[in-house]
């Protein structure tokens, strides 16, 4: 589990904000790396050429992807959320993918760290999304926003139950949003670690065990590595998709 450990890099003692320690940790470092990589990626696509090159095409396909996502789920009103959803999706995607880089192969002391495998981080992002949904919903519809808890076609005699169920499912949203990403990231990394420990331990206990246990584990690891890259993309997509669906509730009610 040490791959999830947060180690302060500098500023351990004397960096504080309102009495809280805000040391620059490996988590902050990997956020910085992700943001720098993302900035570099988008900057490479800002050539404003009429006929785009490959890089510009890549960046434009990402913005177009988010634009389509919001257009499909929220409609024309979703256009103004493109900056937020794009930032959210790309930040999570870059953090997920960068956390999968096998830096240990280089032999140095450098270790990757998956920022999104901490629920503190995913929780902040989920609360942010949820707060935006609340603010937009109440700003656009006022107290009429509460009609979200009474779906169309609710029978009169179920009015005592449905709003309660809807309210609970609404309030669970930030938790499910945060936990889904955190669990998916952590589970994948733990699985890879368990399998690699199988490979190492079984190989050390002899050629027979190495062949019987180590080799299949190693093959499975390769497959799961590919799966993890897929999961890194899918979880970022799911986070962005669900946020845009919640924004649709806030924008259009039902």
């Amino acid at each position, binding site marked *: 589990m040490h791959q999830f450990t947060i180690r*302060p890099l500098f500023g351990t003692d004397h960096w504080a904000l309102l009495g809280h320690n*805000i040391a620059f940790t490996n988590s902050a470092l990997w956020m910085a790396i*992700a943001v720098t990589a*993302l900035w570099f990626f988008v900057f490479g696509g*800002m050539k404003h*050429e*009429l006929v785009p090159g490959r890089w510009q095409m890549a960046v434009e396909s990402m*913005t177009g992807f988010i634009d389509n996502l919001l257009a499909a789920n929220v409609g024309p009103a979703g256009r103004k959320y493109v900056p937020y959803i*794009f930032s959210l999706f790309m930040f999570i995607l870059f953090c997920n993918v960068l956390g999968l880089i096998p830096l240990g192969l280089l032999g140095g002391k450098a270790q990757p760290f998956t920022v999104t495998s901490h629920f503190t981080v995913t929780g902040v992002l989920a609360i942010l999304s949820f707060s935006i949904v609340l603010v937009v919903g109440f700003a656009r519809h006022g107290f009429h926003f509460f009609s979200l808890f009474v779906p169309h076609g609710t029978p009169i005699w179920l009015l005592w139950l449905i709003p309660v169920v809807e309210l609970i499912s609404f309030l669970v949203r930030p938790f499910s949003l945060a936990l889904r990403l955190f669990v998916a990231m952590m589970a994948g990394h733990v699985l890879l670690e368990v399998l690699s420990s199988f490979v190492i331990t079984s190989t050390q206990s002899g050629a027979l065990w190495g062949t019987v246990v180590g080799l299949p584990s190693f093959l499975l690891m390769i497959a799961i590595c590919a799966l993890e890259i897929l999961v890194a993309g899918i979880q970022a997509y799911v986070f962005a998709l669900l946020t845009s669906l919640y924004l649709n509730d806030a924008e259009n009610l039902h």
Partner: protein
Amino acid sequence: MPQIAQLADTYASQIFWLVLFFGFTFLVIGRHMVPKVMATVEARERQIGSDLAAAEAARKAADAAEKDWAAQSARQRAEAHALIASAKVDAARATEAGLAVAGRTIDGRLAEADARIAAARDSARAEIETVASEAAGAIVTRLAGISVDAGAAQAAVKEVLHG
């Protein structure tokens, strides 16, 4: 599980740096750079749209011009035909008039010539009468030895000549 074991020690640091870096991502990349990228895409789509519209307009203009041209050429052909027809009529009329004038001239000349011939014949006949009466007088004088009066000879000749 470090996520829980270290929570109390690290939550402030993680939240602070996340807010900082995600705030940078949102404000600089999301709010500032992404709209520019999308503006480029939109400008391209607008350009393609306007180019297509211009091509469509040009095609319509070409169609209209072709239709105009066809109508104009048809009209001009009709005009040319009308012109040729009227020119033919004019030419025919002019020929007719010319022929009429020429015919009249010829008729005049013929009449004149006829008159002249008639006059010539009359004078020739008168001369013949004179000559014939003189000759008849001379013949009578020679044959009968009588001198005939010129007037009588003339009357006799006229009687013979005109029955």
